[in-house]
């Protein structure tokens, strides 16, 4: 499935996503969607956590920023691993704000992050939908292989 990045997702995802697509093969036929779903699942947890972190944080309360940093780092890691470029960039800005104990900045960054994440999610869903329709159109047979009991 080596196809170019769908223009639908322009900007939201980068070449890393292409790599993901290249990793998909016969032995892992649903690799991309699988990973993306895991990402969505994890991200929503993380975003929830981040929102909580933002809400409870008070300037100069080191520990709360630390938790935020941990969540951010994880979000950055997973986002970059699937090629969610814009989400990752916002995370970087978010991290900078949290390291400066800038509560307002963190809140702003959180909003931006949530927006970007939402956008990404939609784009990826469109991408999958397009892909699915493409496959349908190509007439892929349903799995009725005889080796299935």
């Amino acid at each position, binding site marked *: 499935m080596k196809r170019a990045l769908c223009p639908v997702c322009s900007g939201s995802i980068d070449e890393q996503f292409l790599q993901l697509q290249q*990793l998909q093969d016969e032995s892992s036929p649903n690799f991309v969607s699988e990973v993306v779903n895991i990402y969505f*699942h994890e991200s929503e947890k993380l975003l929830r956590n981040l929102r909580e972190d933002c809400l409870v944080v008070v300037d100069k309360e080191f520990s709360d920023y630390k938790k935020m940093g941990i969540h951010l780092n994880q979000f950055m890691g997973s986002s970059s691993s699937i090629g969610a470029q814009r989400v990752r960039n916002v995370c970087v800005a978010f991290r900078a704000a949290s390291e400066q104990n800038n509560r307002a900045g963190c809140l702003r960054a959180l909003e931006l992050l949530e927006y970007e994440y939402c956008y990404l999610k*939609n784009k990826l869903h469109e991408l999958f939908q397009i892909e699915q329709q493409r496959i349908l159109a190509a007439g892929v047979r349903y799995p009725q292989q005889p080796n299935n009991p």
Partner: protein
Amino acid sequence: MACASGGKSEGAAVPDQFPVGLRVLVVDDDVVCLRVLEQMLRKCMYNVTSCSQATVALNLLRERKGCFDVVLSDVHMPDMDGFKLLELVGLEMDLPVIMMSADGRTNLVMRGIRHGACDYLIKPIRDEELKNIWQHVVRKRWTEIKEHDHSGSMEDHDRQKRAVDDAEYASSVNEGADEVLKAQRKRRDSKDEDDTEFENDDPTTAKKPRVVWSVELHQQFVSAVNQLGIDKAVPKRILELMNVPGLTRENVASHLQKFRLYLKRLSGVAQQQGVLPAYCGTVEQNLKLASLGRFDIQALVASGQLPPQALAALHAEFLSRPAGNLILPAMDQRTLLHASLQGSKCIPVDRNVAFGQPLMKCSSNITKQTSQSLMSNEDVHSEFAAWSSKHLGDMAPACALGSVNEPNSDMLMSFIQQQQQKQSIIPEPSRSINVQPSCLVVPSQSSPNFQAGNSPVSVNQNRGFRNVAVDHNNPLLQSNNSSGVGQTSEVESKPPCMLSEFGAAGSVSSVSSCSRNVKDVACQRVPSSPSTINAVLQVPNMNCMQGSYNGKLDMVQGSTRNSIYVGKGTFIPSRFAVDEHEFPVSNVSHQVKHYVQNNANKVKQESNMDLTENLAWHSEAALAALFAPQTTA
């Protein structure tokens, strides 16, 4: 795998196939990264084992020694710091460890290098980078072999070692090295007459086998140095104090050199909080073990509160480590600590005696090679204690150590338990200096965690991961996973549900729409029936992008409602939004049921086929992802 491992040693087996089959262990709490890495590594034809918990990974490494060639570990993990895992792996298994992180800032990378990482990869990791990780395995092996060759010659053995050490000094990044080197040279020069004195012994020495610094021997060395005082300790006097037949001044001198180097590095640690001094060359292996102690000691020293007695006690604990049958429990160590705390801080002799005791009980189970390395590290600790007593001045031992005591004891206990489990430490014949014994270990959760199926940890042994949702079905029903079992019953009692998950409105689509056939890919709106689970699954309407993402992540609904991706394999997207309060397992079952019904059994069959082979990993991975939220904030 056998031939693969053979291929990795020098020129053996099938060189042209190397690095195919390289056995990699990936540790990352981020399931996304873990999955991607696993796939990439598999594409590199490596034999991949993935793990989302550091403690489990450590157990895996310990239980299957020699089954892995390289470890990839994330830096930030909830249960254990990646750097700590790095040190432990380097110490216990002496495997190359590559760190990874989304945070690629210089200070963090520097820390990784200082902790001994072979490499530091910044996420996102490209598969080209992974293709190259075999170089670290090869490099490590060849370095070991070179060292062995270095010290192979008997005649020039000590002189060679000194030459190597000097070279290490020269190349050491430690700025204090030069000073130490000068001091060493001064001492050596001043003792030239001693050289002539011992020259008669040189031929004898040359014929004798290489001196192995056993635990007892090193302990004697340390005692002698402590008695003399680190500044005044000269090889000749040390030799006299040690009174070990057959030991030459050269042996002592070279050992002392290493010892001082280590101390110097430790002193660097004391000055720079949290920064570990760099190690280099053969000395590094000797001192790897110490790095673990450093890990704790450094923090203590950095806080400026670690008294020499504490160090001595810790040192004693390290000394007692190699004893496979060490009867001396952590209890005694604690007593030791307390006793040392009570006493005056400047009774080096007492200190030495105190931690000399455990040594007596040290068995000789461990290979000499192991003890040697141990000894050098332990020496450092006591030496550091002596050194620090001069430099750190008066401290309040009781309170400082009191807080440290418990964790150390706990770690000790667990360590001792671990140690007793390990019967023998496999020496590496190619090296006389070998750091093998395990060290302080994160307590408690080690063994239980790694019981397969009990912990929601994904440990993957080269299994393909195909269908996410489907696999949940079997584990729920069949697995012995305690967590899974407990949930399973609950799940099955719930009516089938679920669907494409995208967005959760807090109402559980727990009942009705499940029965509908979603083959037409139209997502039905799930009636908001009251749900016992505060689940999140809701089938949004097609083409309905409702609501922007809000804090609860409930209302985001993508444009794609397709819950089935028709293709070579079937696929059911796992829920996109999961409320933390829900039963993840129920979601899983919901997905499964949905999947089953929607595909009218066609896909189900295929998924069942996949299930059997992908069972454990999928279930664990998915369950890990599902169960994890309940513990997070």
